[in-house]
């Protein structure tokens, strides 16, 4: 551990790089939902594995932070474990699996079930930051559309969903309007988590390493999921309860248990599930 901290700067990135990322983050906080380009660095893992989130984490993490990493809600998947170990090594900070104990949480694909609090920072790993990319391949044009708030075409996609499936079928990365101004991709979280973005007391930072973009939602900011008046936004519901903790309010993963089609439903948020289980014991 000592040898590593001697060979690497605190949090791996050099101070100059961290400073530029912090400046970008300040700008992102100042313009909620607006994508800011930044000089994305090479990280010791490949693009697409959370390099954007890691650079944001590296720029904001301090000696006193308590760090948590989740991947699909779980603390114990390979990706989460590796990123947590990485920051243990290059920062020597305390880590945790408990949402309420963490001051800094890096996440891929989920927002914890336990409500976030003031003072906490969420860092989201973002594969594709541009919500308009599916319909407009030109970056010049999408920037213009953002600048002019031309978000009508986004509704075309929702219209098509209803037309084809009878409802808005977009389950992940469901587009949101931030502070009534910028259209934003919330990263591939399930739409179940979208309401948690709204008026959250935590600071929410989004980093896309490959696409070299950072954006943010400051605390207590309105985040509204797009919808139609006659097809209002709705979250997923299950007619099952978690097999482990019996929760009916959390996001459930379907797990196939054998070759005969046996399956069960369990909480995707392992920390939430465990803490409920403990309480019940």
């Amino acid at each position, binding site marked *: 551990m000592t040898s590593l901290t001697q060979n690497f700067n605190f949090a791996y990135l050099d101070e100059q790089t961290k400073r530029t990322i912090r400046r970008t983050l300040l700008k992102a906080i100042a313009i909620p939902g607006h994508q800011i380009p930044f000089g994305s660095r090479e990280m010791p893992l490949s693009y697409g594995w959370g390099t954007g989130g890691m650079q944001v984490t590296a720029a904001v993490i301090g000696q006193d932070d308590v760090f948590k990493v989740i991947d699909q809600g779980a603390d114990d998947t390979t990706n989460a474990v590796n990123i947590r170990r990485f920051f243990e090594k290059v920062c020597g900070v305390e880590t945790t699996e408990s949402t309420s104990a963490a001051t800094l949480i890096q996440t891929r694909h989920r927002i914890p079930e336990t409500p976030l609090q003031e003072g906490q920072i969420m860092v989201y790993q973002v594969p594709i930051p541009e919500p308009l990319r599916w*319909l407009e391949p030109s970056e010049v044009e999408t920037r213009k559309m953002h600048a*002019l708030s*031309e978000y*009508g*075409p986004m*509704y*075309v996609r929702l219209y098509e969903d209803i*037309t084809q499936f009878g409802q808005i079928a977009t389950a992940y990365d469901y587009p949101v309007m931030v502070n009534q101004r910028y259209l934003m991709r919330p990263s591939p979280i399930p739409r179940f988590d979208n309401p948690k973005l709204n008026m959250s007391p935590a600071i929410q930072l989004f980093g896309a390493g490959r696409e070299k973009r950072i954006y943010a939602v400051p605390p207590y900011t309105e985040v509204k999921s797009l919808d*139609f008046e006659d097809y209002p936004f709705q979250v997923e519901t299950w007619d099952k309860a978690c097999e482990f903790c019996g929760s009916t309010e959390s996001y459930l993963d379907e797990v196939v248990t054998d070759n005969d089609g046996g399956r069960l439903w369990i909480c995707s948020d392992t920390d939430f599930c465990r803490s409920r289980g403990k309480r019940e014991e």
Partner: protein
Amino acid sequence: MITDCDEARLITMQDRLVPLLTVERLSKAYGAVVACDRVSLSLYPGQVLGIIGESGSGKTTLLKAIATHLPIDSGRVCYTSTAGQALDLHELPLPRRRQLMRTEWGFVQQNPRDGLRMNVTAGANIGERLMEVGGRHYGQIRQTAGLWLDQVEISQARMDDFPHTFSGGMQQRLQLARVLVTSPRLVLMDEPTGGLDVSVQAKLLDLIRSLVRTLQLSVILVTHDIGVVRLLAHRLLVMQGGQVVEAGLTDQVLDDPQHPYTQQLVSATLVP
């Protein structure tokens, strides 16, 4: 014989005195090639202005420059908005310009693939402009889209089909519906009947003509087909080498062509 509509006619007459669009000495060059050389024109409400000329005469460049799809070297394009303001389009702030293009203006492309979203359904194609101007009620958007499908003679049963399953003529009619759904006052058309079979062309021409009358549209129509302007255009500009060489009422220009180029153009046309 007609007395009860005198008042309506008076209003029409007064409207006609104020041009909807004025182009003043518009020039546009691509390097050494001058595509539009000091072109001036004015368009009055309810008029169809045809622009005719062979390939390379600058007619499509002129149309694109009017639509602000292209920057211009000099000159002005002035549009009188619904609110009665005279707007210099190329000087207008981008947001306002784009808003105009989505509401009061429409552009019909020669190739429907350029004017439609081929990967979304017909209904969404028509609904897009409604959603762009704030339409947020799925049911109402569909209802409006249905009415427009009727208008352009496409069965409502095709609303949820993709444009690539449509014939060329239907695609072009769908494009019309997509453009007309926000009730634009000015529609620019670039060879709207090009590439269609003659019988399909006739149907489309007839449709455009009746829409122009019922919706009181003003149209600038670029084509190389004299038959098309004969049937659709009230007025005609003849372009050659980037310049307007002759202008007037369509029948004046075609029945009494004065410029050598126009005479050649008219005499080369087979009269059916």
